[in-house]
């Protein structure tokens, strides 16, 4: 793609289109911002706060799932379509932990119905995350081993179809194993959904839910941890090397298959953690729970620049915010929030063809 600074003689039509689109969109956005904030304020500051809380929390979950996509994509250049279903498996793992701990009574004087998970919420949540992540990581490992590894040299769309098959299989296995009903996460008492800190904003009370804060904190911790892992450890170095060039990495004595396996384990564990968070914050688990977040997270990963870990984080957060703020700012019905999200994706990609922080692909590298 031609670089930004062009000689004045010939300007490509694409650039004209780009500029016109950009000006139109920026103008529209400014006008809408003016309308909703100054001209004809549709919402009070409490509503804006709610939008932002909702967007950021959802975005942080998207980000966590998106990292899984991005890690696998960075190394194998394939879309792991079954990633959302790995998340579903993790969510079920956490669900069963809570169900089990809920079944252990730990009555106190004040509340005879107190259970183990109410009495020791930290242990319960920790255990749920550990079990959920481990099961998901294990699934990721076997998924790669069975469905992707034999296709290492195949044309690049072949693993995609294999992934789609795996996704269909996992969804239906989940349905047949656990039944079709939607199940509710039995959170510890302190993490009751809907409870939270009451923030007085703009004359109203805005609830900052505990579960949401937990979600945000855990995902930030996991993302920072992952970033350190990729940037600071030997495993991370090897992963980057394999992502850069598998042949050369192999020549350098790196066990490429091993690294790929570990990548799937890590991305599976992150998806599993996201699944548990999904359960804790939103309370819902069933066999199809991973499908939509999977698609959304994939979008987020591309939005941020697929292959880039910070990009996935940014993309996830951005997407979460667009979904909650977009319809409000543009004054469009919330039913069309995905339309807005995808339209923004197209716009971003028109201006930055490789995502917000994507690697700049030169002609030679492509």
């Amino acid at each position: 793609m031609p670089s930004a600074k062009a000689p004045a003689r010939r300007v490509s039509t694409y650039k004209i289109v780009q500029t016109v689109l950009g000006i139109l969109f920026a103008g529209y956005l400014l006008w809408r911002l003016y309308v909703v904030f100054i001209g004809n304020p549709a919402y009070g500051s409490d509503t804006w706060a709610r939008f932002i809380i909702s967007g950021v929390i959802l975005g942080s979950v998207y980000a966590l799932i998106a990292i899984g996509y991005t890690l696998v994509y960075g190394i194998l250049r394939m879309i792991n379509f079954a990633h959302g279903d790995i998340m579903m498996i993790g969510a079920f793992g956490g669900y069963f932990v809570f169900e089990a701990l809920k079944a252990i009574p730990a009555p106190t004087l004040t509340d005879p119905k107190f259970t183990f998970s109410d009495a020791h919420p930290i242990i319960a949540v920790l255990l749920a995350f550990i079990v959920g992540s481990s099961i998901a990581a294990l699934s990721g490992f076997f998924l790669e081993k069975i469905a992707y590894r034999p296709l290492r040299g195949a044309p690049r769309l072949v693993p995609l179809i294999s992934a789609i098959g795996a996704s269909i299989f996992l969804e239906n296995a989940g349905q047949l194993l656990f039944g079709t009903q939607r199940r509710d996460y039995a959170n510890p008492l302190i993490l009751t959904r809907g409870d939270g800190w009451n923030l007085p904003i703009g004359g109203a009370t805005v609830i900052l839910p505990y579960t949401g804060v937990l979600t945000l904190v855990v995902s930030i911790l996991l993302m920072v941890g992952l970033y350190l892992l990729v940037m600071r450890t030997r495993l991370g170095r090897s992963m980057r090397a394999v992502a850069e060039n598998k042949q050369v990495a192999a020549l350098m004595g790196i066990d490429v298959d091993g690294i790929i396996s570990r990548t799937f384990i890590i991305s599976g564990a992150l998806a599993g953690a996201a699944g548990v968070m999904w359960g804790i914050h939103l309370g819902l688990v069933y066999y199809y729970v991973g499908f939509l977040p999977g698609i959304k997270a994939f979008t987020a990963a591309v939005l941020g620049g697929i292959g880039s870990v910070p990009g996935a984080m940014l993309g996830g957060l951005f997407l979460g915010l667009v979904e909650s703020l977009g319809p409000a700012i543009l004054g469009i019905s919330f039913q069309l929030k995905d339309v807005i999200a995808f339209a923004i994706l197209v716009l971003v990609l028109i201006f930055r063809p490789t995502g917000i922080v994507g690697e700049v692909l030169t002609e030679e590298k492509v």
Partner: protein
Amino acid sequence: MKRLYFVFAAFLVASMVLAACGTAATPTASAPATQAPATQAPATQAPATQAPAAAVPAVCSTDAGGCAVFKPDQTIKIGMGAPMTGDNAAFGTDISQAGKLAVSDAGKFQGFSFELDAQDDGGTGEGGAAVANKFVADPQVVAIEGHIFSGATAAAIPIYEPKNIPMMSPSATNPTLTTTGSKVFNRNVFTDGKQGKFDAEYLYNTLKITDLAVMHDGSAYGQGIAQVVNDSFKALGGNVVAFQAITPGESDYSAVLADVASKKPGAIYYGGYTAEAVILVNEMKAAGLGSAIFFSDDGIYGQDFLDRTKANGEGVYATSAPLPPESPAKTTFDAAYLAAYGTAAGKLSTYTWNAYDAAAVLIKDIESVAVLGGDGNLYIPRAALVAAVRATKDYQGISGVITCDPTGECSASNPILNEVKNGGWIVVP
């Protein structure tokens, strides 16, 4: 240019071939429709060698659809097209399970047993047509319970129509389904119109709501009823402050609720099903809608809603069919359902009882027209069955009374209103 002519010529020839094939195909294709006895010929001839021809009941020769013939070891099949896989599989699972219970409760008829053949149609038009074509190709299928989703049903009706296979859907609510003049399609479920108007009037007149927010899940059912409520409420003089749709399958609706909250509605009307209603109700307080009334349709009525909303569900209104509160038949059914499938009736979908009734009605109607031939075979005249289903009157089911009107609307009763009080649904007088 010469080539161009050639291409056109080729087309012309091809279309003529097509036309020829089309006409040639006619007798084969439409035979079952117009001369149905011919298709049954192999089945009727076989026993004819052993028994006198009089063994075949006279009604079969006069019936416009001919007779379905069952040898003593064959089962009478009731087909069902339902989403058994994918996002909406809970509906299919639930409805087929309830239908199967109805079949086993029906026991044997003249020594013949019934069978519910539930096929996956994915809830889509394409799947619905595929399943319908499969059923019409199976001579043992005499009636259809379903389909479950309106889209699949719409695509299936034209396929059953010429084959005289009656349908009884426990859940397809799209109003247009009964307006096309189909003689085979019936349903024992509310349509949007009746319920929506009732709800809007109650909201405006009794609850004295002036500012209403209407939400729905974007499904044919939810959107339809929300539209009716919206229109009726406005016609009454009320003010609809927000009309928003959510995406089913998502687990978080806090943003759209925040938007609705900013309009300060006195109540939210939601058109849709339990799965999403539970999330909405649970998130309402956090979104600043703690004081608004949540009002919904029969899609959320049931134990599952209570189990999953707990304290948040208090004060929620929902319409339902006038259930005989706890009739012995319903109690027995609920116990049997729980024992057989491990989940409570009404947990997977709200159509469990409708589904049981739909199957039971079909079986009753089959029994009313079926004739045992002199050769020991059972004969079911198809057109007579279609008429019998349409003529169903005052059938007391566990979900209410079933009486079909000339268009195929069989849920005769008016909706009643329920409110959640102290963790249970209480009928509002």
